[in-house]
């Protein structure tokens, strides 16, 4: 069976975040600050990049969600605070993945 219209690898984007050591050496504890509210999750270290002193998490871009200047992204794992992998993110927090 073939799926149509799914996010491709090229639909991955970098999401601004904070990251520190997780519960394993190859894992990072990730924090995402959403207008004062912090959500957090664990992610493999390979999904985190540092650029100009800022850290970014690789996520899948899903698309518009009706909220102005926001996009829905799919996180690599569910976050503790919401229990979901879907997240509405201000566009300014996203950078296109290479």
């Amino acid at each position: 069976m073939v799926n149509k219209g799914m996010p491709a690898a090229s639909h991955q984007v970098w999401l601004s975040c904070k990251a520190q050591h997780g519960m394993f050496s190859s894992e990072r504890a990730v924090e995402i600050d959403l207008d004062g509210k912090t959500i957090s999750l664990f992610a493999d270290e390979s999904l985190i990049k540092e650029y100009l002193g800022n850290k970014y998490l690789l996520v899948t871009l899903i698309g518009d969600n009706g909220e102005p200047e926001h996009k829905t992204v799919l996180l690599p794992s569910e976050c503790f605070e919401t229990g979901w992998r879907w997240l509405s993110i201000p566009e300014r927090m996203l950078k296109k993945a290479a």
Partner: protein
Amino acid sequence: MVLSNVDIVKALKDGAFKIEGLEYSEPSEKPFNTSAVDLRLGNEVTVPFSDVPVQLDLRKGNIAKLWAMHSKQITITEDQPFVLKQNQFVLANTFEKVSFPLTPDAQCYSARVEGKSSLARCEVLIHFTAPTIHSGWYGPITLEMMNLGPMEFLLFPKMYICQLIVEEVSGCPADAPNQFKGQKSPAGQVTPKSAETRASEK
């Protein structure tokens, strides 16, 4: 539909999903069962502190940081295995890293991690409550382990610890963003990597 050992090998060779670090030759040999593939224990065991005077409130935020701060990582070796005591809970992860990508115009897969009957007879839980490896996952699989048996149980690196059951995902997990439909390569916004490259070229 659960993949057979033969179909798992075929999908691995086709690159439909990846299990990094998996050592195999034939689907009729270890680490395959007829409808699963066994994975090995990594070389770290994480022990959450048991005496933290905190009430967990998931609404407060920074839960990942809290857990990272209140746990101890232990590296295990052949000579120094971890002794899982009676009723002790630890986290561990698999030696292998798995990747179940969200791919366009192709079959997507997900998986479930399950214990092994040999360890179940020893009354060792390998996971509880969260066996699903969703489409889009990349990384090692975290195991929530507990010893319910009457004896201590030794955890060695690279011992076969769990089995992975791979399934086809029917339908689309998500629609593609409109602005990227039909686009083969990214363009437009600055990427961390490309900007970095440009800076180094100056």
